[in-house]
């Protein structure tokens, strides 16, 4: 147990300590010390400026995340099961994987206007190929032995999905969710910066124009904290649950 606390607390403590040290050495407004940043963070929270923006960004993140995961999983499974389709669309997938995020965002705004829907669409398009590729791999790796067993014992379709397919895809779903969350975080801010007038991205844009480094860092901390919470409260327990049968 002691060990666990050490590994949870010591790394961030060391990070903050190094940051403080560096701030002392550099001694410039461009790298504010941790204390200064945390007080700005506290101020931003108490004045009620940070949380609404964080909430808006989170909402965009969740909506696009669920759309991308659902559609991506469906497409990934179909491509994993159907070789001809996979062969046909493989090049599409590679193209979409490699279109720079900025290009999709700009095009979405140009084509569909500076709207919420265009913003969400841009995020989904960026994330989708990623999910498709991961789930396609997962589907290809499905073990044929288990399907034969299920077929010879007359498993119903629902039983096959619940007890044979999903447990095998679980690690791939978790992997897609993890990498997806990280990717969407990065993209959602750019989307907001370019075409929205609220959210974290928009705020960061304002701070950038004012050269307000302390605020930028304060917002980053709020951000990272939320991501850590999602990881700890949702993803880790899901992961543990799925792994409990392993030796």
């Amino acid at each position: 147990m002691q060990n666990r606390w050490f590994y949870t607390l010591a790394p961030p403590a060391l990070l903050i300590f190094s940051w403080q040290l560096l701030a002392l050495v550099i001694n410039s407004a461009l790298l504010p010390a941790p204390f200064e940043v945390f007080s700005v963070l506290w101020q931003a929270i108490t004045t009620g400026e940070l949380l609404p923006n964080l909430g808006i960004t989170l909402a965009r993140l969740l909506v696009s995340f669920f759309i991308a995961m659902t559609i991506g999983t469906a497409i990934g499974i179909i491509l994993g099961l159907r070789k001809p389709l996979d062969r046909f669309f493989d090049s599409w997938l590679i193209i979409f994987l490699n279109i720079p995020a900025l290009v999709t965002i700009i095009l979405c705004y140009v084509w569909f206007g500076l709207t919420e829907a265009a913003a969400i669409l841009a995020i989904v398009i960026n994330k989708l190929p990623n999910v498709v590729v991961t789930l396609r791999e997962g589907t290809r790796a499905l073990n044929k032995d288990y399907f034969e067993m299920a077929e010879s014992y007359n498993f119903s379709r629902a039983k096959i999905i619940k007890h044979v397919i999903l447990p095998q895809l679980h690690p791939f779903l978790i992997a897609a969710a993890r990498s997806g969350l990280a990717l969407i975080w990065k993209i959602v801010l750019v989307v907001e910066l370019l075409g929205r007038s609220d959210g974290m991205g928009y705020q960061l844009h304002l701070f950038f124009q004012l050269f307000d480094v302390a605020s930028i860092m304060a917002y980053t901390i709020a951000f990272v904290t939320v991501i850590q919470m999602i990881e700890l409260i949702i993803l880790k327990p899901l992961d543990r649950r799925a792994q409990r049968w392993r030796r």
Partner: protein
Amino acid sequence: MININIQEKSWPATERTAKQSVIKNLKFSLESGEFICMVGPSGCGKSTLLNLLAGLDSDFEGQIQLESKSKNYSPHIGYVFQNPRLLPWRTVRENIDLALPEPLPEQSSVVVDNLIEVMGLTGAQHKYPEMLSLGMSRRVALVRAFAIQPDFLLMDEPFVSLDAPTARKVQKLLIDVWKKRPHTVLFVTHDLNEAILLADRILFLAPSPTKIIADIKIDISRESRDEEKIDRFKKKLFEENEEIRMLL
């Protein structure tokens, strides 16, 4: 009575290989409640044949007629594979229960409890398959097959790679459970001793394309099948059948 008549089973031609005929003109029948062993060298199409019988592969020419008690009744087929094929993310008990037909037959949980106890798995019921030894996993696979109360049980070298004492133990359990509720069993093995120990009748298969070269009844009573008698039977078999000796 189960009538099997396979005119042809072949693998389609691919870019590199020509069309390959695995089974051709294979015809035999099984009496109800009979324990049949199939013996043949590896690669003689035994697993392919079992997959046809289990209905996993319908791409062949011929007919397989399973006995049916009544019109609306489709016979239960149990299949014990070469590897246990337990779902690693479900416990032993869940693996067995999942295989049961829906809606659950009456008394099925009593039947399962009883089988689990006979096979010595009571303590392992709620463990995950990865915690079990191979011998235990194979016993779970047996319970799963027996639990559905099969009319026809297919077994594909189910005891291969078990050490001799464990194999003997599981063989004995198999016969005990089968005797309590006799049903037709088709047991594939490449171990002639195992076949003589278990079977009412042995079919010897020769490869490519699969054909039956001998159909031998075992006339030793089940109770008195010991090593010595099995060896004597084997010797006699080899003396009388040149073909079998060449085969194995």
